[in-house]
């Protein structure tokens, strides 16, 4: 409801009209927050411009992500060289695990895909001047920043951050013996609640903007797949984050007010606690009702971005656009009925196991369709191995690997022996760690020229890709074997387990070295982007010769309000590549029938020009 109030606030100041297209064009954009001279503070700090907010989100997410990266390398130091680093004791090790997982999943990937890419791309791709609720959008970022600061603040509370693992399972999360049981778990839960508020404010904007502020001609079935991915992921977030909110609030009650929602009768450190009768399984159900859709909250935007990258850099219409859209929607729907596959060993009725295994395996169908369609888009395409394309190809590779091991783990009978081993660590890092991160990098390299107006250093970008890609395989591929050996996850040290051969330690040392190399290589990315923002070669408005709307802003980087006096009008889908003859091999979405684009080309489901124009 706060959004509503805000509108009014703006209205009282003389109006604000993000859609701005009512004939009045730019002038109709209102004067609430734009166009006039802006101070540095209103332009870059308290900004209501979706592009500035997107960059704020992106930079914050990357900074906190780098913290999580350092934490992962610290964990690897302990696993590769047990006991060599005195400051990594068991308590800290668990704190590093927890913070690494939570930051990477929620505060980096979710925030970057929705808050970063969503904010930047949705209005530009659908032809809007801004999000429909710009003030709420600004609030969303500041709530997100607050949640990040609260989370990082837990490093400084007595006892340090929680070490309960990112799943925060009770009863151990709030019992003595778990690190951070005093302040850490409370700050974590408060931070999550604030994050959920931020994600809800942002999500309301993304969904409403896509539904209400598309420009003329931008039908739903002409939207780029990036927008589709972010759109469905946002709906998932809006429906699934409440489950995390519910479990977080109920655990806060258990921890701070002494209720017994999740806490059974416990004897802890020789003392009977006041809790009784609660159900830890209830928490697991609530958590995974959020946790599984969360996987797709980060995967669906990645799918969309990869589709766009593959199509643009292979100069071909995406194969099966409609199928791709429906696959995103179906995956999103199915993601709500698979959550208990995270709980096979927690115990459930065999029929439930059967049900959840079945739904889990069914998700492989639309997902595989997407992989086939990317491959078919590449087939006989005019593939340009640019940095974004390399990352897109890397994504397909790691995603297939992680997806296939998901088929193993989706089966109850296979999951039970592999549960809690490094096989699971390898699986989920490949499918929802490395893959979305490669999509993030691909997207950043692809849209950086639009965001900054400058080009990055290509050689450094390629170096970044190859080290990250090969390094990820070096880290996670061997973990499958460690897992099959039976090496359990979440252990601080692996001494005196007769079933783990000494060679496993050698493998762990190798993985640690690879992880440190990959970690250091990320500095190349940070350095490249910082330097290129100021010193890069001017990129021009459309360096990739892409057809989608965001590349046709009058200025690069786009100014506040995005478009000139008139909003663009859209005549076709975003993937009209591969035309022979003429000056270019593609038709921008804004090309009308009179500008040389025949009506036949206007349907995105078709691959116009495929019959007449063989790829070069």
């Amino acid at each position: 409801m706060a959004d509503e109030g805000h509108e009014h606030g703006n209205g009282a100041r003389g109006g604000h009209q993000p859609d701005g297209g009512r004939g009045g064009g730019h002038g109709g954009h209102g004067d609430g927050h734009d166009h006039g001279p802006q101070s540095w503070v209103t332009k870059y700090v308290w900004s209501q411009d979706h592009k500035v907010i997107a960059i704020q989100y992106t930079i914050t997410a990357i900074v906190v992500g780098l913290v999580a990266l350092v934490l992962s390398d610290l964990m690897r130091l302990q696993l590769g060289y047990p006991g060599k680093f005195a400051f990594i004791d068991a308590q800290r090790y668990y704190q590093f695990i927890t913070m690494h997982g939570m930051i990477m999943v929620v505060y980096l990937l979710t925030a970057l895909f929705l808050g970063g890419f969503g904010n930047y791309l949705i209005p530009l791709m659908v032809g809007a001047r801004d999000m429909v609720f710009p003030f709420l959008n600004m609030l969303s970022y500041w709530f997100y920043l607050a949640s990040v600061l609260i989370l990082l603040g837990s490093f400084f509370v007595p006892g340090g951050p929680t070490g309960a693992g990112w799943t925060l399972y009770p009863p151990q999360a709030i019992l003595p013996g778990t690190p951070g049981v005093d302040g850490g778990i409370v700050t974590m839960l408060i931070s999550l609640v604030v994050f959920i508020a931020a994600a809800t404010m942002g999500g309301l904007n993304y969904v409403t903007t896509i539904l209400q502020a598309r420009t003329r001609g931008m039908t739903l079935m002409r939207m780029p797949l990036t927008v589709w991915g972010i759109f469905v992921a946002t709906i998932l977030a809006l429906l699934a984050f409440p489950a995390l909110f519910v479990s977080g609030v109920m655990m806060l009650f258990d921890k701070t007010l002494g209720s017994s929602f999740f806490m059974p009768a416990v004897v802890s450190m020789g003392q009977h606690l006041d809790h009784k009768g609660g159900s830890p399984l209830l928490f697991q159900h609530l958590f995974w009702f959020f946790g599984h859709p969360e996987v797709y909250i980060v995967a669906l935007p990645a799918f969309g971005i990869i589709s766009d990258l593959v199509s643009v850099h292979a100069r071909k219409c995406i194969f099966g656009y409609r199928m791709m859209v429906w696959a995103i929607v179906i995956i999103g729907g199915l993601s709500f009925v698979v959550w208990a596959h995270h709980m096979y060993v927690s115990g459930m009725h065999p029929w439930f196991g059967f049900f959840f295994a079945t739904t889990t395996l069914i998700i492989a169908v639309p997902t595989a369709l997407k992989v086939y369609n990317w491959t078919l888009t590449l087939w006989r395409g005019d593939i340009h191995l640019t940095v974004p394309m390399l990352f897109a190809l890397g994504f397909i590779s790691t995603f297939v690997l992680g997806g296939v091991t998901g088929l193993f783990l989706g089966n109850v009978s296979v999951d039970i022996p592999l549960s809690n081993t490094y096989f699971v660590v390898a699986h989920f890092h490949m499918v929802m760690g490395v893959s979305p991160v490669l999509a993030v990098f691909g997207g950043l390299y692809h849209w950086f020229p639009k965001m900054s107006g400058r080009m990055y250093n290509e050689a450094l970008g390629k170096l970044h890709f190859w080290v990250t890609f090969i390094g990820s395989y070096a880290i996670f591929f061997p973990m499958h074997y460690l897992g099959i050996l039976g090496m359990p996850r979440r252990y601080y040290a692996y001494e005196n387990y007769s079933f783990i051969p000494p060679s496993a330690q050698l493998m762990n040392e190798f993985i640690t070295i690879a992880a440190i190399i990959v970690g250091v290589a990320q500095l190349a990315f940070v350095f490249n982007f910082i330097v290129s923002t100021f010193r890069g070669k001017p990129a021009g408005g459309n360096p990739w010769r892409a057809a989608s709307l965001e590349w046709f802003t009058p200025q690069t980087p786009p100014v506040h309000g995005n478009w000139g006096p008139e909003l663009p009008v859209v005549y076709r889908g975003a993937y009209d590549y591969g035309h022979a003859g003429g000056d270019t091999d593609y038709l921008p979405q804004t090309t009308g029938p009179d500008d040389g684009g025949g009506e036949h080309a206007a349907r995105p489901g078709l691959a116009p020009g495929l019959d007449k124009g063989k790829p070069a």
Partner: protein
Amino acid sequence: MNTLVHSGAAPALPGLSYVARRAGLWVFLGVITSLFMLFGAAYVMRMAMADWQPLRYVPWQLWLSTALLAGACGAWELARRRAHQSDGRRAGMAGCALSLAFLGAQWWAWQAMIAMQYRVDGNPADSFFFMLTGLHGLHVIGGLLAALLAGRALLQGEAMGGLARYRLAGSIALCAQYWHYLLGLWLVLFALLFWVTPDVVQIVCESVGLRTPQPK
């Protein structure tokens, strides 16, 4: 939908179109529905544990608060129907006042429950009572803040002419919609807290075959 954004050469109205704001509200109501449905699911699942003791005492203050919220809802509906008139705007203010009274009555009901030894760290049914009524109250407070922002110009005594009045009417309609939702939500929560007992759940589960019949 697009036609609403591109209404040709129509003069630019200040602020967002009502349709976009209403769409935003619908999405938000979807989020709240998801939130409280999940709380409801957690409530019923927790109820299945052996230590559950249903709430047997309904403080009369809850009936008062129900009446107050229904009154607020009615006032907002009146405001929506006469949004362009000053009495409509007064009805909106009455809706806010009744909502504040609702919050007071809920607080009073809390005190009554505490006096009867129902405590947040007691039986989980008691904990749920305080948590769910508290969260519902927070949503009422959020609505009041939004209404306050929407009516800020009015409260500051600015003239309600032309476009400002048009916009305020839109906000009033959205407030009315939100308050109708709040009333519906409260009635569902009220029923959930006091009339959904383990026996009721058992009967429902038996009838759909989720649970085997228990010997009486």
